[in-house]
């Protein structure tokens, strides 16, 4: 059986992979981060020399009406039957991050934050217990390997012959000015992940932002450590999903639209950017496959920029990136390929390889 670690919300791609596992004759079970956040009944014990874990999941999440008769449909996770694990996501948002935790506002400053932080750490630790319990099975993207250091990855990519942008992390305006003089306009982006803040009825997105020399001069002499890269001229942005050493690439024509020319995630919904299949140069494709192999990533979502002088410049890799946004517009069928990959990991092989087509194929 394939265990899928996911979250309870907005996982249409995960569900399609589940459909494929079923269609190809496999079995899977989905466990959501929310199960560890109150949805499931958990019991862990150290029993003699062994750790025992019991997870009691209802037939569905609570509130899924009509709820099956109590007890009858409670399903214990059969850990022994798990042959492979797919880590898709865990908890997008922990319940205690959004919940009102105090009956009335606490009098001590920062107490609320302290409580939330502790609950989050506890919840992370518990998840780690669980992930450790599944050691020894093949994982597709282990969460402990889910965030390779950006700078190391860039250097690694460059060693493999990939073009990469000049990159600087600094706290000093003088340093940034020199960088800016050498490379022209630069962009800044978070060292880790992007974030979105809601305030005053507005959303504030951390899209990649561009700074020219004038903007640099307006910065204070010292600032918090920040990441800068040379701003590359873009013909298109490339988004590549790599699985099993095979690259599935899509070109995003974000450049012709003012709204998306710095960062395509600033979607234009009226006239969406053109997203079309793209054929990477063989040297780029093989270097990317090798990079993932050497980073020990089974799968990855890779961002590149195609420059007007036809270079394919590597930006970054996200090990648990989404594949639906590449698979759907290009009709790559990645959901099926993922299911087949998982079935191979689980040692069951894609059953039904010779199955009768149901009006399909």
């Amino acid at each position: 059986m394939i265990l899928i670690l996911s979250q309870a919300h907005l996982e249409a791609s995960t569900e399609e992979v589940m459909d494929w596992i079923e269609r190809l004759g496999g079995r899977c079970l989905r466990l959501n981060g929310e199960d560890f956040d109150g949805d499931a009944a958990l019991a862990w014990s150290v029993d003699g020399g062994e750790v025992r874990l019991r997870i009691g999941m209802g037939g569905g999440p609570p509130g899924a009406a009509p709820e099956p008769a109590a007890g009858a449909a409670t399903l214990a996770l059969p850990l022994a039957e798990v042959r492979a694990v797919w880590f898709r996501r865990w908890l997008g948002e922990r319940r205690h991050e959004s919940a009102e935790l105090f009956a009335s506002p606490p009098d001590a400053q920062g107490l609320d934050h302290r409580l939330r932080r502790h609950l989050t750490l506890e919840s992370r630790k518990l998840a780690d217990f669980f992930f450790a319990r599944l050691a020894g099975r093949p994982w597709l993207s282990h969460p402990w390997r889910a965030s390779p250091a950006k700078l190391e990855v860039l250097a690694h990519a460059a060693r493999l012959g990939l073009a990469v942008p000049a990159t600087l992390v600094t706290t000093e305006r003088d340093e940034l000015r020199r960088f800016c003089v050498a490379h022209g306009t630069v962009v800044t982006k978070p060292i880790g992940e992007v974030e979105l803040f809601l305030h005053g009825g507005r959303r504030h997105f951390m899209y990649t932002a561009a700074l020219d020399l004038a903007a640099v001069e307006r910065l204070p002499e010292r600032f918090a450590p920040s990441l800068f890269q040379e701003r590359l001229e873009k013909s298109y942005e490339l988004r590549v999903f790599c699985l099993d050493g095979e690259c599935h690439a899509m070109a995003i024509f974000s450049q012709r639209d003012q709204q998306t020319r710095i960062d395509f995630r600033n979607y234009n919904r009226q006239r969406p950017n053109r997203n079309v299949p793209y054929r990477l140069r063989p040297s780029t494709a093989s270097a990317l496959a090798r990079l993932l192999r050497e980073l020990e990533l089974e799968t990855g979502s890779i961002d590149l920029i195609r420059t007007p002088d036809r270079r394919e410049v590597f930006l970054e890799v996200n090990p648990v990136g989404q594949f639906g946004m590449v698979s759907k517009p290009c009709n790559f069928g990645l959901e099926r390929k993922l299911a087949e990959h998982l079935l191979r990991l689980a040692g069951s092989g894609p059953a039904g390889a010779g199955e009768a087509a149901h009006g399909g194929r």
Partner: protein
Amino acid sequence: MADGDGGRGVDANGSRGAGERFFDLLSADGQRLAPVAYRFLHSQPAGEGGPARLATSRHYRARGYVCFAFHKPISKCLAGPEASPGDDTGGEEAERRAGEEKAAAPAISPRAPGAAAFALFACCVPVRGARRSVICDLQRQSLHFIPNGLYEILTEHRGKTTAAVKEHYAHEADEEIDEYFDFLLREELGFWCDDPESFPDLDLSWDPPERITNAILDVDAGSAHDYPAILRQLDDLGCKALEARFFHACRLGDLTALLAAAEGGRLRSIELLAGWGEELVPPALEGLAAAYQRLSGIVVHSAPPWRQHRWTVERLGTAMEYVTERIDSPRCCGKIHPGQLVVNLETFAEARQFNSCLNRKVAIDARGEIRNCPSLPRSFGNVREVSLHSALAHRDFPALWAINKDQIAVCKDCELRYVCTDCRAYLSEGAGLYSKPATCTYDPYTATWNPPAAAAAAGSAKGDTP
């Protein structure tokens, strides 16, 4: 590409002219601790995200199960609009619209082609018809009619430079060719590139995991369906979309009985067609949409004329409509008109291989008979005695699925053949099972929609024969 915004300070004020700047909300300490990226956050009004419908699904253990409308009409009971949109030749209409949109449109690069070749975006697929062709924009879901001459340029002369194309036509059509490319660029259907080999075609194969993708369930005052049993079987087949057609005047309870039975299941879309009954007032319908978010639309038929109205529910996007047409039996189905054309990748890819109406469809009529479609005579047994699974296993059940538009008389010459969802129940004469749908008034040999009904009623000589 020339980059014009270098001197503008770029995004030095991330929230240009748009209220607060996030960075300004921070204290002196906050500003000191925040990386430079925080000074350039992009601000936009909240709540802009598209409508969303979420349900729960026990099968997938999903609480936020994303629900969306099926990619094409499941049945075709409603008559079309009076006018015939898209009835034009040679992209004139598109050109006119392009003119209107020009101000709002992002700048295209009218870069001199030089050594470059014109490439259509892979999602813009040209289809040739007898008299004209069409570019199906499968991403933005629109049609752009083009002359067959342009089709030829885009296909036979694909990858050639403009100079080479002009040369091929012995420079007798230079001006038209320039106009063609201007049109394609303005409509953003393609781009100049010097490496067309980097841009492969879309893979147009079609094979979703579901054994059945969509189903029709007919209900009348005398029906005695066991909804939970039927829905359980549809779930087992992986079915994601259901249209239920209630031919009689309905009470709210008739609809909730079905909707409640679908809760927690696998369907992502339920469309209802229900006979007007006085309980089906707009607030009640909106209440259903909020309570049962699998609902992607309700059409109330046989409504009094003053009820005629069409809207979408805020936040959910559920499509609601009252129509005066009387839809009291499966015989109302099979209406082909411009309003039924669907331009998207799924439909297009499916239609190239399979029958665009019947493929992977199952229907249960008001008496419980299992059919390919309620309008077809053949029954594969009654759902009370035969499981859907075994009905589908019958050799003849999938037979009709394989009749694609390339095999159908007249349709095979029609440029709209992959965006049309066909009908195999009501056929015109001539080619038996491979005849054109009876209600289609489009004539691909003249590229005109004949006036609906009028032509047929008058027994006009202007039939749809070539």
